């Protein structure tokens, strides 16, 4: 099925072997899978039927120059026959879970990198499954058999090179960069092409004469360590040379924060609308804290205006997981919003949530409101989000759930 020129890489055991599996145009592919009539048509996915921002699009649409993040009217100008499809996060979460379960049958050393990407460390299963390119091939075949979707794979000796390799052949590609060739293959690649080197780091490197990965070895490692710290500095220096030492994160770390944000209709000035959005975010943060048995007392509330973010860090008296106290904090921020100022985005984040298993000595036994919240969670879990909610949220225009790139099938990141 796959003819790849990597036969020569299969003659020896790799000292370290990492595979990145990346689904191709994941949400669009799922929609085309479930709706055969949309196959071979340009398809763009938006958040809900009213969403105007394209969160992903099929390869047929990409051929017209349509990109993720583009506004729908602009996309329609490029491709008038573009099909707009509202996203179905629960369906994507279901397919993603099945993909991850399939990959877990190959090796337990797996890091779910995003909803449609996963790293596999196959260093220790080369005797069992064969050489890394063969394992990558097997992974792609198993995913196709399990969910009927195509994916790209990058195979190398470290995470950064594997990620770089995976995007070289899309869709449905397999790229192999063996660890002993990684340094040479990356030498002419701009450093900002590597995952983890953002614009800020890129600018710092450019100032020091590092435009391409090959330039990195001439930069003393101390300069990077002084600027970015010992760990990151060393990692940056090595990753540009195809030797990223970063291990896979196979465990989901305890959450440092739990937050929800929403882009609003541009320049919203109506206070009632802004309050409704804030209440909705408070509702979602509180429900998620309860879902994962967490409590938080510090919250970051933020509003984005045309020019800047206006934010406020506030705390509740005792750690909480309820909508009302969080919403009350959010209202304090509204007082800081200059009159007539338009809002573009809202955000509420619970900072440093802690374990709710350890109850407070001085909190009164569970009040009625807490019981009501628990019952509401159970109803919503069974019949769908917002089936039961505060009266003020019932008549809001549909604000569909969004599946975040950081979504995971387990733990606190399972947002959908």
């Amino acid at each position, binding site marked *: 099925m796959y003819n790849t020129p990597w036969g020569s890489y299969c003659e020896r055991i790799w000292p370290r072997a990492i595979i990145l599996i990346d689904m191709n145009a994941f949400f669009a592919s799922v929609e085309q899978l479930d709706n055969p009539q949309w196959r071979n048509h340009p398809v763009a996915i938006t958040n809900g039927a009213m969403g105007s921002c394209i969160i992903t699009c099929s390869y047929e649409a990409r051929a017209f120059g349509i990109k993720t993040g583009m506004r729908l009217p602009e996309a329609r100008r490029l491709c008038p026959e573009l099909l707009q499809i509202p996203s179905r996060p629960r369906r994507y979460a279901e397919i993603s879970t099945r993909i991850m379960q399939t990959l877990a049958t190959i090796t337990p050393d797996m890091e779910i990198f995003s909803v449609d990407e996963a790293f596999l460390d196959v260093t220790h299963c080369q005797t069992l499954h064969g050489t890394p390119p063969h394992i990558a091939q097997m992974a792609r075949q198993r995913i196709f058999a399990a969910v009927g979707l195509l994916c790209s794979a990058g195979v190398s000796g470290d995470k950064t090179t594997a990620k770089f390799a995976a995007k070289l052949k899309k869709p449905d590609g397999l790229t192999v960069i063996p660890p002993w060739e990684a340094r040479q293959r990356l030498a002419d690649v701009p450093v900002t092409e590597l995952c983890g080197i953002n614009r800020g780091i890129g600018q710092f490197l450019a100032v020091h004469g590092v435009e391409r990965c090959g330039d990195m070895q001439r930069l003393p490692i101390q300069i990077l360590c002084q600027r970015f710290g010992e760990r990151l500095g060393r990692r940056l220096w090595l990753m540009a040379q195809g030797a990223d030492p970063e291990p896979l994160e196979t*465990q989901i770390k305890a959450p440092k924060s739990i937050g929800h944000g929403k882009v609003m209709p541009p320049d919203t000035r109506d206070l009632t609308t802004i309050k409704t959005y804030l209440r909705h975010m408070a509702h979602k943060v509180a429900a998620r804290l309860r879902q994962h048995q967490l409590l938080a*007392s510090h919250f970051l509330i933020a509003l984005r205006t045309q020019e800047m973010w206006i934010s406020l860090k506030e*705390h*509740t*008296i*005792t750690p909480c997981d309820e909508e009302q106290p969080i919403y009350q904090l959010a209202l304090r921020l509204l007082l800081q919003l200059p009159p007539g100022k338009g809002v573009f985005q809202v955000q509420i984040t619970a900072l440093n949530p802690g*374990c709710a*298993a*350890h*109850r*407070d*000595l*001085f909190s009164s*036994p569970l009040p009625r409101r807490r019981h009501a919240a628990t019952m509401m969670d159970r109803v919503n879990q069974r019949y769908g989000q917002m089936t039961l909610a505060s009266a003020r949220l019932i008549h809001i225009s549909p604000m569909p759930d969004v599946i975040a790139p950081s979504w995971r099938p387990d733990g606190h990141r399972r947002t959908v």
Partner: protein
Amino acid sequence: MKFEVYRDSLIYPLSILSSIIQTKPTIPIFSQFFLSLTDSTLTIIASDSEIQITASVEIHSTDLDSSTTFNFTLPAKKFSEICRNLLPGSLLKFDINELQAILRSGRNRYQLMLLNPESFTIYSMQASLFSISLPQNDIKWLLAKSSFCMAIKDIRLYLNGLLLEFRGNTLIAVATDGHRLAFSSINLADDFSANKIILPRNTALELNRILENTTDLCNLNFSNSSFEISIGSISILSNLINEVYPDYDRVIPNDLPYIFTIDRELLKSSILRTASLIPDKLSAINFSFSFNHLSLSIASIDHDNSVEDLDIDFSYDITYAVGFNISYFLDVINAIDDKNIVINLPHDINTTSALFHGLHDNSYRYVIMPIKP
């Protein structure tokens, strides 16, 4: 102005004073000692925003008139370091002018820049409401048994302190961080009218450090917003936390249904062995009880687990499971002096906490909120 003082007479007071000096204080003058020379006594004051410690030191000689007072400041950490490194028995000679201090000892010479002493705020005790003299070891015991339960930087300010309550002829100390509570009490010779104060966390910890295990008396003075204690030549003045302490009586449970006694050392060593998988001791340790049997278990996030079984005197024919924060549990075990500790467990671990005390001494007790196993 010149004076001389023996290094050895400075060492003890400086060790106490320098402990409250912050490395980077918000107000620069708080990195300094305030010194005042009157007659043949040198008074040294260290202060931060909450606590002020004053120490008096006898000087060897001075050229100052006996009727005048001379004030100056010295950088606290540097001065303490200089004195600590001088040879025992050496005489330290001061030569102070408005801008700098020159310190000489033997063939050493130090030149220190000075700040304006007038910018140093000296607090004094407000109108005293009542005072009491108590042996140092009694107060030290009271604080040692309770202060470890104080909260650190809690939003509820009153939890970042220690409650001292006069109730009849009893002085009670209570500390809690919201998940555990310590209660200790001593009997007084006289009855006092009911009174409560909350000592800030730093003051309680400093007092516990400075007080010695002697029966020497120290004087305590209380006012509405401050507290002063005099221990020999050292005097400590502290702000109080002006908040209402929560009703602690409500959360100390009575008449709990399951009570058993266990050897303290046996339990401690078992917990430490079981917890050896957990590096930070912040996780929960699970206790599973059945008739005359206790099973301790811990599961780490790496899916490792450890179990230890113990034969204990648990005379209830039930199976009962409860979890506790390991470090909370070890703190309590370490604080109880008795060979055997009594553990009182509630019927419903969701609503009621567990109570711990020594077998023979009920004057100090601990409450820990359980965790669902």
